[in-house]
């Protein structure tokens, strides 16, 4: 009896946590036995053989010949992007017409990335709604969320379910309004955001355009459309940006330094960075609703992440505004171009303070360039960010080898190629549009690189291939607070530089850390 007590690895006096539990000899023994006696295991050599085979060129070719299955795609769905855009407006509750499960995912996705509560509701469609249409869910849903959460605006997007059965948002919302779910003059912009089309950046675009066109074109037929009277002001749209908290604040700081009269369309830097002071802020900050209407009069709109705003920008163009499009500008030249465009549009000179910051970033690069020069990188992410990062890597003298974008198309591919071709450091680089992280796995095995840049999911690639991961992208779940740091502007370039350098130095240390073995090069000065 006593013997069996002892043989248990868990006992009340010393309860082991998951990190250690299954490493106990009892478990190891049990697993081994289970495997041999019950699992009819493939011999270990065979497993090893196959593992090695998946690293080969032969496997890579088979992997790239995949036609139907996506394995570890690096993209999210439209409503996620729609919510991202919606929460950037004052007191706005994102409302997703469709099934509630999707919305639970969106909320947890954002909460895990921003470490903040993320408010969003759904119309909780069930089977009968799928059969008879979701009108009643919309009517009840708008009424409930309006009275429960007291929003100033509800921004409606859709899940696939509502899209498949063909629910008409415009008609449904009008119906709900007529039924008294919400006041007649309560703002409910909307966008159809089917997930089987595009990705989260498409959803961002649709919702942004949905909100602007709702306000500018007569609020779904309830008021006369606005007439544009140009004023000396520019609009800025950030796009789907994992660093929105840091970036928006940095952006505002730079624009204020320049003395620019600007309006940010969708500023979610406050709602995803609320203070802990005993007050729960379901809504915080954001673009004022009156400013959405004002924005039509601005002389120009600048989109910082063009692939997130394709439809929005052409809509704004049609309204007669000038537009300028960037692709997540990171680094010296990209920031130069961005600031010069702002300067050109507004006639405001770039102040000395910003020029000094530019010099500081150049200085930082100069101090450290030897460590990055010639290092080979693989990177993946959203279309704009991969372009921005590629540009910065080239600027640092690093070599982007594999540039992969699951939600990138032909246009992205062309842009990425042009970028690589313009620099001698890009000549070994290849561009992979529409590919997933299992493709990336083959790339990393067959054509190894020094470092990998990507989101949290790339940690499995890091584990499998041994390629050190620099976490930049969306989502970042397993490291905290990166979103508080800007990656735009010269300050942002500095952050990205430091993240890259930190990994390089960490690797150098890791490579030299074994006492009495490799630590003769484990130095305090790097």
């Amino acid at each position, binding site marked *: 009896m006593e013997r069996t007590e002892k043989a248990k690895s868990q006992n009340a006096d010393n309860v082991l946590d998951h990190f250690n539990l299954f490493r106990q000899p009892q478990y190891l023994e049990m697993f081994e036995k289970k495997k041999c006696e019950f699992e009819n295991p493939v011999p270990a050599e065979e497993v090893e053989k196959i593992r090695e085979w998946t690293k080969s060129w032969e496997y890579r070719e088979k992997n790239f010949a995949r036609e139907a299955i996506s394995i570890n795609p690096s993209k999210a769905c439209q409503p996620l992007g729609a919510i991202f855009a919606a929460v950037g407006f004052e007191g706005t509750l994102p409302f997703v017409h469709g099934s509630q499960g999707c919305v639970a995912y969106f909320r947890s996705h954002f909460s895990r990335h921003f470490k903040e509560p993320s408010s969003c509701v759904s119309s909780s469609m069930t089977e009968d709604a799928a059969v008879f249409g979701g009108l009643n869910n919309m009517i009840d849903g708008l009424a409930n969320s309006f009275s429960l959460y007291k929003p100033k605006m509800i921004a409606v997007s859709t899940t696939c379910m509502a899209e498949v059965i063909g629910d008409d948002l415009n008609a449904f919302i009008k119906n709900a309004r007529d039924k008294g779910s919400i006041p007649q003059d309560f703002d409910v912009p909307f966008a159809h955001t089917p997930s089987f089309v595009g990705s989260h950046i498409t959803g961002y675009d649709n919702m942004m355009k949905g909100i602007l066109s709702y306000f500018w074109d007569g609020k779904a037929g309830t008021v006369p459309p606005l007439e544009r009277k140009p004023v000396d002001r520019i609009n800025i749209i950030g796009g789907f940006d994992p660093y929105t908290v840091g970036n928006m604040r940095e952006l505002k700081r730079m624009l204020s330094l320049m003395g620019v009269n600007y309006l940010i369309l969708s500023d979610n830097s406050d709602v995803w960075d609320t203070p802990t002071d005993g007050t729960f802020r379901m809504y915080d900050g954001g673009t004022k609703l009156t400013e959405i209407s004002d924005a039509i009069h601005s002389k120009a709109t600048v989109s910082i992440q063009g692939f997130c705003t394709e439809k929005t920008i052409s809509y704004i163009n049609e309204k007669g505004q000038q537009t300028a499009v960037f692709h997540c500008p990171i680094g*010296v*030249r990209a920031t*130069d*171009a961005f*600031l*010069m465009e702002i*300067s050109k549009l507004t006639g405001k*000179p*770039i102040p000395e303070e910003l*020029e000094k910051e*530019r010099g500081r970033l*150049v*200085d930082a*690069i*100069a101090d450290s*360039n*030897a460590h990055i*020069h*010639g290092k080979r990188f693989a990177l993946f992410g959203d279309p704009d960010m991969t372009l921005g990062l590629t540009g910065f890597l*080239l*600027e*640092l*003298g690093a070599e982007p080898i594999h540039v992969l974008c699951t939600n990138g198309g032909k246009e992205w591919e062309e842009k990425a190629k042009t970028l690589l071709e313009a*620099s*001698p*450091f890009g000549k070994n680089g290849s561009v992979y549009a529409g590919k997933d992280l299992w493709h990336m796995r083959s790339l990393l095995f067959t054509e190894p690189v020094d470092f990998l840049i990507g989101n949290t999911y790339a940690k499995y690639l890091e584990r499998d291939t041994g390629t050190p991961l620099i976490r930049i992208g969306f989502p970042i779940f397993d490291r905290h607070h990166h979103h508080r740091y800007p990656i735009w502007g010269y300050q942002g370039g500095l952050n990205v530089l430091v993240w890259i350098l930190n990994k390089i130095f960490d690797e150098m240390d890791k490579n030299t850390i074994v*006492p*009495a073995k490799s*630590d*003769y*090069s484990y*130095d*305090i*000065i*790097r």
Partner: protein
Amino acid sequence: MTTLSAKIQEVFQEPACQKNRSKSDKERKKGCTKILQPGAAAGGCAFDGAKIALQPITDVVHLVHGPIACEGNSWDNRGSKSSGSKLYRLGFTTDINEMDVIYGGEKRLFKAIKEVVEKYRPPAVFVYNTCIPALIGDDLEAVCKAAKEKFGIPVVPIQSPGFSGSKNLGNKLAGEALLDYVIGTEEPEVTTPYDINIIGEYNLAGELWQVKPLFDQLGIRIAACISGDSRYKEIASCHRARAAMLVCSKAMINIARKMEERYGIPFFEGSFYGISDMSEALRNIATLLVQRGAEEELLAKTEILIRHEEQKAWRKLETYKKRLSGKRVLLITGGVKSWSVVSALQEVGMVVVGTSVKKSTEEDKQRIKKIMGEEAHLIEEMTPKEMYKMLKDAQADILLSGGRSQFVALKAKVPWLDINQERHHAYAGYEGMVNLVDQIDRTLNNPLWEALRTPAPWD
């Protein structure tokens, strides 16, 4: 202080020093570096010089007697690599406080030695004196002597208070300490006619290891390297070596000269930097060894090795020639012998527009003139302002220098490559020259410089 000032005078009188010989008696007494100008920027002190000269001895305890400043700022600050003990990387100091200053720090020092001996059982303890104990009159030598008797291991006093002079003086004081207390105190277990000492090589970035395989191949044994990657016993018994190579002539010339005097070990000055210099060094070592009883065939073996290694290096360098040919280099260096780097750079077609000769001997200067031509720009002393102007005017494509001039180069928007002690790439030997050229190539071709040279595009 009399022993210290006597030591300093001894070092100043060093007869093997070319510079010394050319001075008048009066000048010589004043020492090597010019009197410091209060308020003007200056380099390291004698303590720093002594510490960096000996710190590469890996298995001894380097104990700094003084307040926290001295060791606190110098602990493990040199990329001098060890193939064995890591003891030299620990920061040991008596960290004396106010009461010690009032009542004297000798007791604390003695206790510190006791504790460190008990804890680490090192083959020896090196005790460095600093300004404060020297000022309050702690008798370092007496404490070390007592400790040595009590604990039965060598306890070596290094008289190097910062106020006694420059870093370079400290290097020499460290050498004196080795001569007085270490070298010749033990006998080697084995000796061969192929034993050499390498003096003034610190194994920075593992450079000695790039050269050692060449010696190994020739059957030449390094009895002691002073002081890179060395053990106490090697240095204590290195007086039985047959020949010596002096690598950094200024820092430790006193060791080489006195060992020749005391033990009859002939030495030559050489360098591991540059292909022809590396070959020359191998040749000289072989020649000295053969003169002192090594087999004649060593000479032939050396020539074969040289031919083979040179060919290998040239093949590798060939690829860079095209890209580097005609590029203009300004060379500002203290530690490494500039003429050897000059010839190496010329070997890949680069143009050396100027080189510093601050630490070069007359002979060095003659050599530089020989390679670079009479109108060669030899720079004795250069303020950052002058350097800036020169970089601007000479339109050099790259500056090779120590870390301190880095910022001057960046200001002048000229690419810069670190070739002094804080560098992390090894440039010694045939391999090293290829490394250096590769680093120059990378530095020159980094896209940063374009960003740096072009003004903000809106200007």
